[in-house]
């Protein structure tokens, strides 16, 4: 009936207006909604990075000939290293590492240039501080590439057959860490905020006792929940747009694929997160517990198990299995494909389908739980 539909629409509008009042009158909610995402994104983007610049190293040159000088110059000019000290004896090596500033010692053997010209080979020993294994690895790789490029430049002079692979880093040629982090952060923030805000706002009504009054009214549970969730869909979507804008203008992360597809996938993921929030709020009627579940139960797994920082392929099998249950994992794959590789829907339909399936599953569980509570 037309009048019924009109009344329902009016009820729904009233509900959404009320929800916006709650949001805009609570500074805490506003901070969580818009402050935290921006700060997190900027923090992660600038601070958490795999790139290392100006790492302090020490050089122990026992040869001091024209080739070792040239290689040392190359090491310095690469920008990755800064020579902090020149060592005179092997006994100093242990001491500089103990001091802690020096990350790596590069040692040229005695008679370097002579050996290289006579035998065609000479040794560089690289000693790193592996108490920080990741840094050590990265530094060794940087140094390798510096010496390789020196060798390449000398190739003609040396007249030796060498196979030098030409490496092309596709989709992120400068190997910027931020390219990896932004999709991850986006996945984390959207799921955290959407699930956290919905679960808190629903449990708040339970705590206040207003939920009972709403349930005793002619509103159907479906209307109550969709009325509560609608504003958060809008706000989370604005958040997604904000994150894409910041990553474009501040971190120069391109969007190679279709922008509409990207936004559509964001919307789907937001709805997945909201349905998780609804599910959480059916499990508890306390705001505190809802917050704990959202923070501990969603944030940590998202950081650890979504392939955001640690590659899924390297995990023990059980954890890999867990990873496949994480909605963020699929979302990260989707946005990386769209933003960085310019992939179209035909490449991400599988992940999209999985996210949609998860959403339906969460909603189904919530409805079931809600019904048993009434009985």
């Amino acid at each position: 009936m037309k009048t019924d539909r009109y009344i329902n629409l009016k009820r729904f509008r009233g509900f959404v207006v009320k929800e916006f009042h709650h949001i805009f009158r609570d500074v805490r909610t506003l901070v969580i909604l818009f402050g935290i995402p921006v700060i997190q994104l900027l923090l992660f983007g600038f601070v958490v990075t795999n790139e290392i610049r100006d790492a302090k190293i020490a050089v122990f040159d026992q040869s001091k000939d024209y080739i070792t000088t040239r290689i040392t110059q190359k090491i310095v000019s690469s920008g990755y290293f800064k020579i902090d000290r020149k060592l005179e004896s092997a006994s100093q090596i242990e001491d500089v590492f103990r001091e802690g500033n020096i990350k790596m010692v590069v040692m040229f053997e005695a008679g370097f240039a002579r050996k290289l010209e006579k035998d065609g080979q000479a040794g560089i020993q690289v000693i790193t501080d592996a108490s920080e294994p990741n840094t050590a690895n990265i530094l060794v790789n940087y140094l390798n590439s510096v010496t390789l490029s020196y060798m390449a430049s000398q190739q003609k002079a040396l007249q030796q057959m060498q196979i030098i692979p030409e490496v092309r880093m596709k989709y992120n040629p400068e190997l910027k860490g931020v390219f990896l982090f932004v999709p991850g952060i986006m996945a984390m923030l959207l799921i955290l905020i959407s699930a956290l805000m919905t679960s808190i706002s629903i449990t708040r009504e339970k705590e206040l006792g207003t939920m009972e009054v709403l349930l005793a009214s002619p509103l159907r549970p479906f209307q109550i929940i969709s009325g509560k969730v609608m504003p958060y869909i809008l706000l989370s979507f604005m958040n997604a747009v904000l994150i894409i804008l910041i990553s474009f203008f501040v971190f120069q992360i391109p969007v190679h694929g279709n922008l509409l597809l990207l936004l559509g996938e964001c919307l789907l993921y937001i709805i997945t997160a909201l349905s998780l929030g609804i599910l959480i709020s059916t499990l508890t009627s306390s705001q505190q517990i809802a917050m704990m579940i959202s923070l501990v139960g969603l944030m940590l797994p998202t950081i650890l198990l979504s392939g955001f920082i640690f590659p899924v392929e390297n995990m023990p099998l059980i954890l890999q299995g867990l990873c496949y249950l994480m909605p963020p994992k699929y979302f990260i794959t989707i946005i990386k494909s769209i933003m960085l590789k310019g992939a179209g829907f035909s490449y991400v339909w599988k992940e999209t389908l999985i996210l949609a399936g998860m959403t339906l599953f969460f909603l189904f569980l919530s409805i079931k739980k809600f019904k048993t509570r009434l009985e």
Partner: protein
Amino acid sequence: MVNSDDIIIARDLVKKFGDFTANDHLTFSVKKGEVFGFLGANGAGKTTAIKVLCGLSYPTSGELTVSGYNIYTHREKIKQNIGYMSQKFSLYEDLSIVENIHFYAGIYGLSNKVIRERTEELIGMLDLQNVRNKLIKDLPLGWKQKISFSVAIFHRPSVVFLDEPTSGVDPITRRQFWQMIYDAAHSGITVFVTTHYMDEAEYCDRVSIMVDGKIVALDTPLNLMRLNDSVNMEGVFLKLARQ
């Protein structure tokens, strides 16, 4: 016993949670325009009963008709015709008085014109002109309680359910609140109220006393006192609860 004037008819109403029987075969009826009290100690099953009557939870077995509608088949119709005020007053603290009224009125599908007229009437009656745009959290408890009750009957339901509406408010406010209940009853709204204040029980037209999930007595306060040789309801209650 079935009477067209009966607004609530419950027959053998049972509500179980697992092995625990919260409501054990409740049979009673409430007349139109009556102030019907539901008296019992904490845990006697009052709140459970009121939730079943409001359609907030399903009965395990038994017959229940509210406002002429069957609870199993016409739950939505019932909800349109009842008002409910919970123990917690259930107003939104971060909304103003007028916003709360408009929100709840909107849920019941009242037209904007009706909402506007009744809001002004209510604001005038409760003398809230100067605070109409104040947030609920800035108001004293007694005011919240009165506003909450007014909101619960704003859509002119045929019956309003009040779940311990006076817990935590001072005696003077309680007295004023009961005046509001009488006014509502005079305008034809049936009032179903649970309480554990014995003096309030005396204000009701009829009282049912619940002990351990069962109704052990149901009559007018005067009859109950006479039958149990008591001068007040407290005596009646203590006598019945001890049995």
